[in-house]
C-alpha cells in the first residue's frame, strides 16, 4: 500500500499530464464545433510537450545555461568545470521548441481552414456542415 502511495507521489505529474492529454483528445473526438476541436488539438499537443519537458527535469538542478561562461567561452586558460547533474537536460527543451513551432503552424493552418469553411458554409458546426453537404 505504501508502495502505491509512493508511486503516486513520485509519478503524479505524469498522471496529470496524461489526463490533460486525454482532455484534448476527448475534445478532438467528441466536440462538434471545429474551433473547439482545434482548441482540443492544441491542448493535446501542449500536454505532450509538457510530458517531454518533465522528462528533462531534474531536482536540484538549474536552467540549462552555463554559469560564469559569459565572455571567455570557456576555452581560455581557466577551464570551467561543469557537472552534468547541476543542469537540466536541454535536449527535451530543444525538441519541444520544435514541437511548439509545429503546433503553432498547425494551429494557423487549422484556423485558416476553418475560416475558409465558414466562408463556404456560414457555420462551424460539423453536423450542420454535413447536412449542407447532403443537401447538395
Amino acid at each position, binding site marked *: 500500500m505504501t508502495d502505491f502511495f509512493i508511486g503516486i507521489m513520485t509519478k503524479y505529474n505524469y498522471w496529470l499530464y496524461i489526463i490533460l492529454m486525454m482532455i484534448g483528445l476527448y475534445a478532438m473526438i467528441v466536440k462538434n464545433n471545429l474551433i473547439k476541436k482545434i482548441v482540443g488539438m492544441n491542448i493535446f499537443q501542449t500536454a505532450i510537450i509538457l510530458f517531454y519537458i518533465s*522528462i528533462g527535469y531534474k531536482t536540484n538542478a538549474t536552467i540549462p*545555461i552555463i554559469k560564469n561562461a559569459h565572455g571567455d567561452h*570557456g576555452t581560455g586558460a581557466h577551464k570551467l568545470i561543469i557537472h552534468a547533474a547541476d543542469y537540466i537536460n*536541454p*535536449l527535451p527543451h530543444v525538441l519541444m521548441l520544435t514541437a511548439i513551432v509545429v503546433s*503553432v503552424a498547425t494551429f494557423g493552418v487549422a484556423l485558416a481552414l476553418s*475560416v*475558409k469553411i465558414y466562408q463556404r458554409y456560414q457555420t462551424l458546426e460539423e453536423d450542420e456542415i454535413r447536412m449542407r453537404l447532403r443537401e447538395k
Partner: protein
Amino acid sequence: MKYIGLLIVAVCGGILLSATSDFPDWGYSQSPASTYLSNHYIEKSIEETGVPNLVTSVLADYRSFDTMFETAVIFCAGLVCFLLLRNYNRQKKFFYRHISTGVVLCFKDNCKNLPASKKFEQMDADWIPHDLIIMTVCRILIPFIQIYALYVVAHGDFSPGGGFQGGVIFGSSFILLAISYNLQTAMKKIKEKILGLLSALGVLIYVGIGIICMFLGGNFLDYSQLAKILPVDPIHVRALGMLGVEIGVGIAVMAVMVVIYVNIASEGRHDEGL
C-alpha cells in the same frame, strides 16, 4: 459519439497510465534520459561550440538540421495560409472618411481605391473610432518591442531566447500596429510582397549557411568550416554560425507571423482586419 469518444480516451489513457510505473521517478537525476545524451551536451557544449545557452547550442548546432526544418515548417505555414485564404477579389464596398469633418463616404461596386490623400482616409466597414490612448501607447511601445526582439535574437547564445522567440516578438509588433490602427496602416509599413520575400529569405539564410559549409568541404551545416572564410577560430565560428542561423529564423518567423495574421484577420482580402 460521446460515449465512443469517452471509450477511446479511457482506453488510451489507461494504456498510457499503465506504463508510467516503469518510468524513472519524476525529476530523478539519474534516469537514462538525463544521463545519456544530455551529459555530453551539458559538459561538452562550451568546449565544442562556445555557447553557454545549452538550448541554443543543441538547437542551432547539434540538432541544427531539425531546426532548419522547423523553420521550414513555419515558412510552410505562412505559404499555406496564403494559399488557402488569399483572395484577390476585392470587397464590394469602401468607406472613406473626410478627416476634418468626419463625413463618411461609401463607394460601391468595383470602384477603384481613391489615391492616397491627406483629406480622406480609408476606414473599415465596422469602424470603431480610434482610441487615442491606445494609439499613442502603441506607437510609443512598438519601437521598444522591436528593439527587444532584436535583443532576444542577438542574445540568444547567452540567455533564454533566440531567433524564434525574437521573430515572434518582432512580428507581433506589426500585429499590434494592425490592431491598434488598422490593417491598411500596417500593410503600408510592410507590404505583402516584402513579407513573402522575407519569409523565403529567412529560411534561405539558414539553408545558405549550410550550403556554404558544404562548399567549404564539410558536411551540411558544419559551421566549423566557416573558419576558412572568417577570421575566427573553429570553435568561436560556430557561435557566429549559430547567430547567422538565428537571424535567418527570426526573419522568417517574423514575416510568417504577420502573413498568417493578415490572412486570417482579413479573410485573405488584405483590406480590413480586426
